[in-house]
């Protein structure tokens, strides 16, 4: 309940405050969002499996975001930032898809 409320509050805050992203964070924010989405879908799947644990979720969320940002940073330093960003997005996208597929199978058996 609190989780859903928090998500809503965050979205509304972002929409109404419309803060501008600091220039230094601009390359990392989209990747971080995708990484966090991945962690969230993983958590939903775990919830349906009955193995959800908020400690695990917090750690996976934070580490996902940090690792994604680190990879993008490293890519920028190596001059392959955009390619590496694409790679990270692809990998996270695959994971999100597989998580969603598992959730779907769990809920609908299909």
């Amino acid at each position, binding site marked *: *309940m609190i989780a*859903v409320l928090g998500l809503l509050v965050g979205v509304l805050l972002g929409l109404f405050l419309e803060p501008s992203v600091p220039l230094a964070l601009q390359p990392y924010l989209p990747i971080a*969002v995708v990484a966090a989405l991945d962690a969230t879908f993983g958590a939903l799947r775990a919830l349906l499996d009955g193995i959800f644990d908020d400690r695990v979720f917090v750690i996976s969320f934070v580490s996902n975001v940090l690792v994604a940002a680190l990879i993008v940073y490293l890519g920028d330093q190596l001059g392959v930032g955009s390619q590496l960003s694409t790679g990270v997005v692809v990998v996270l996208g695959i994971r999100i898809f597989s998580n969603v597929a598992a959730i779907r199978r769990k809920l609908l058996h299909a």
Partner: protein
Amino acid sequence: MLDQTALQRVARSVVARPSRGQAVVGVLLAVLGFAAAVQVSEVDSDDAYSGTRREDLVQLLQSLSVAQDRAAGRLADLEETRDALQLSTQQRQAALLESQERLDSLRLLSGQVAAVGPGVRITIDDPDGTVGAATLLNAVEELRDSGAEAIEVNEAARVVAQTWFGDGPDPADASLVVDSRTVSAPYVVEVIGDPATLAEATAFPGGLTDEAEALGGTVSVVTSDELRVESLAPARATSFAEPVT
């Protein structure tokens, strides 16, 4: 066909008693929602070139700078044209002003417009009818010599280059003919020019005063700061003379 146990787990977690773990999850999800919304609005507000590739941007920049060069060249051309036009306009205005001044002075000298200015009023009384056209003509010549710019007789006859003087039909009745116009004594000659010089021109020995008094007339000269010469000379069209261009 929904999995009842999974749904029950979800339902249980939704209605579960708020715990610290749930709060942490809520905060994290709030951060996620916030970041996603910010990123979405950021992408929305980005300008049209944010997704453009570097080569395209370089090409765009080059074409822009070429266009700018071209515009700058055009600007320089137009400024040059403008300067030339301004110069020619100024020259034309100066020429116009000069010809306007020339026109004014020619119209004054040819008696086509009324004139105002300092000058003298010479009154020649002729009780015996003895002062004739020759005396007046001499006087006019002297006045012209002294820089007279506009002359009229009896506020009726403007004296210009073509003006002629003749004695009246009856020599005894003290009248003259100026440009076919008969004027009677006393003759009032109004002259615009430098008053002192004009007065001098009538007073020198053997001049108008001496001549008229020798013939039995009287001459009085009054200088004035503002005389009006309002009669006009008849306009004359030339039939034979044409300007040499």
